[in-house]
């Protein structure tokens, strides 16, 4: 399986999609496929983009085929302070993420890949440099604007899933919407929003786990719930921090395939941080981070 992937780095293209999906989800595959297409529609026209890779199957690497730059980092620097010592983590990272691509950032532990992702996700502010999202500078935006951005336009998944233990899978998925809407607005639209969350959970293969608490779910199931949560607000970009890092190979591969299919079906832009080259090799494009800088190799 992995062999097949590595041998075929341009995985997202037409022919491979069907077997991938059938491995991840057996019989319900066809139905899920439709669900992904209908529910996870991003701002851009999904169908138009999906047509493109299949039209040019031989196209090398992710490159320009996917669309314009959606997220851009320019000269990012970040250091942590431990006592009097300054520990530089990022030493000037330049990065461009294009619309519709699945990009992997790989690097050793301590190379700063997680920090980079946190900066991109506006969870932290860079010491120097700029981050542009959809042509807007976001690194120096106000806290409230950044909160809004995280809530509505960015989706995040983590190595340790980070589900809220007090809430059920369904409630976890609904959490971002609860944050978006005020009490009354949520109450009014509750039925609609719950329907959306349910169909999304169905898409990720968790239709039978709606009322379960995170501790009653397996690692793979938790990560699927986390993906559903990240997608509920129909974000333009999904930022994944070691999504398979805490899962065994087979489960990790399942998650990877889910991400892949989301990318292809809905043209979801995904930036994924990983240290696993096998996982990274399934991406459209791989960026290597060495000592806080993008390695050219």
């Amino acid at each position, binding site marked *: 399986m992995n062999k097949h992937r590595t041998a075929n780095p341009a995985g997202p293209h037409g022919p491979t999609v069907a077997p991938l999906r059938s491995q991840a989800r057996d019989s319900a595959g066809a139905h899920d496929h439709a669900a992904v297409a209908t529910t996870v529609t991003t701002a851009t026209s999904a169908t138009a983009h999906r047509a493109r890779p299949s039209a040019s199957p031989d196209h090398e690497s992710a490159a320009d085929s996917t669309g314009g730059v959606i997220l851009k980092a320019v000269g990012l620097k970040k250091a942590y302070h431990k006592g009097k010592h300054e520990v530089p983590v990022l030493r000037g990272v330049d990065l461009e993420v294009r619309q519709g691509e699945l990009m992997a950032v790989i690097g050793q532990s301590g190379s700063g890949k997680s920090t980079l992702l*946190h900066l991109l*996700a506006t*969870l*932290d502010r860079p010491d120097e440099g700029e981050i542009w999202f959809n042509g807007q500078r976001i690194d120096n935006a106000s*806290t*409230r604007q950044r*909160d*809004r*951005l*995280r*809530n*509505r336009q960015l989706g*995040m998944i*983590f190595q340790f899933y*980070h*589900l*809220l*233990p*007090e*809430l059920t899978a369904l*409630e976890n998925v609904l*959490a*971002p919407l*609860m*944050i*978006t*809407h*005020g*009490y009354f607005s*949520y*109450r009014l639209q509750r039925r609609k929003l719950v329907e959306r969350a349910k169909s999304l959970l169905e898409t990720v293969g968790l239709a039978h786990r709606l009322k379960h608490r995170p501790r009653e779910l397996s690692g793979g199931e938790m990560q699927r719930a986390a993906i559903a*949560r990240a997608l509920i607000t129909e974000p333009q970009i999904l930022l994944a921090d070691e999504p398979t890092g805490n899962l065994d190979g087979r489960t990790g591969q399942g998650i990877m395939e889910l991400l892949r299919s989301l990318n292809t079906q809905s043209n979801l832009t995904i930036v994924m941080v990983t240290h696993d080259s096998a996982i990274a090799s399934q991406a459209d494009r791989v960026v290597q981070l060495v000592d806080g800088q993008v390695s050219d190799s």
Partner: protein
Amino acid sequence: MYKFLLCWRYLRTRWIALASIISVTLGVATMIVVNAVMAGFTQEMQDRIRGILSDVSFEARSFNGFRDPEYHMREIEKIVGDEIEVMTPTVTVPAMLSFQLHGEWNTRPVQLIGVPRDAMEYASKFRQYLQHPKHREQFRFELQETGYDLRDRFGGEEAPLRVRMEMAGMVHRRSMIEYRRQWEKQMAAQPAPQGDMPAKAGAQPADAVADPFAAAQVANPFDVADRPIDPFAARNDNAQADPAAPLTGCVLGIGLASYRHAGAEHFLVLPGDDIQLTFPTAGTPPKAVSDSFTVVDMYESKMTEYDSSFIFVPLDKLQELRGMFDRESGTTFVTSIQIKLKDESRGSIVRDKLQAAFPPHFYSVSTWRDKQGPLLAAVEMETAILNMLLFLIIAVAGFGILAIFFMIVVEKTKDIGILKSLGAHGSGIMGIFLSYGLSLGLVGAGAGMVLGLLFVRHINEIRIWLGKLTGQMVFDPSIYYFYEIPTSVNPWTVAWIVAGALAIAVAASVMPALRAARLHPVEALRYE
């Protein structure tokens, strides 16, 4: 929305927080109970203190009193006529009470108060404290046949039975005289060394536990009869015709007529017995005069100070005995005028007006509060200090909440990071913990309120139950003169207590909530 959901989930899953709120519950409950009891106690005290005190009393500084009360009342009327409901002239004088007990004379200092014979207008509550139902309706210094209350009116069924009160009244008087006649006959037939010897216990008939000599004066009324100013000269004739005819009536404070021993009341004097009173005349120098009176009723206000020192006698009788009248002009003297106001709360205004109008070196004007000011102030002070201390208990509970909330914030650090990564704003996170604090406060204060009010409502049952459980009287009526713990719930007090507890719970959650709101999302996410 997520605030309420998470707040609710935290409430349901964090029992430790509920434990922290128990201290608030107990604090609120205690404060409500203590306030209710203190308020009940204060009210009861005020009622008792008021007892016979009128709203405003206008008094002469001299025991000799002032001349012509009618003139004074007219003058007072001119100054504050609009405020006054009724005025009553009285004479107050220190006196000695003597009564015979087992043949021996018993003498005690008392305060003698002369009130008009109908006593209708004398202080509003005077009649209410009497022991005969008829006297409570209308009082005329007349001895009733029988029918005096058998129990303490304020004690209800719980009060011990006053067995001897059953025969009080004319019945008692006649049986005493009959008994005495028998006794004298016996003495005559079998000459004893002295007729006035104390009775031996064995000589008394079993049913008459009462002192057979209480009525001794009746048989020996000569010193009374010889007094020059005796408006009741006819009475002595009657006395000879019917030895059972009562003398001038008087009302005895129940504390003078009885004593408590081992929790039980023992009566020394009953309505129907005679007593002797000695007091100074109004002349200079004062001379002691004495006269005999028949106890027609007893006065029980539960205010020991009054119950064990006051004796009420008819005003005109006292004036005559003390020589407080002027034969030529026909005017009388009184020592004070008791004023009942239409609106009690205007007492101090009336007092100030009267003080300004009458020469202060002759007259003193005071409200009932002035007279018992220190006592009332002490009770108020006590309530205030108790409240302060109890509120400190709730404040201490607040620190408990603070600590536990900090703990919960630390425990939930990761969740806070997650929420922030999902786009929750700091204020939203703060809202979770503030509403958590508020709802815990609501639960705690609400439970405390219910608990406290239930306790107040059933306080006497709890007292009885505790008494049974421990085998000890928790609240001994013979000490406190209450048969039930008095309570009075003031809704405003309860509201303030609950509001205070809520404020403390919220205030205690502010700091942890702020901390939660300020957590850095990345660090919070990394937190393990």
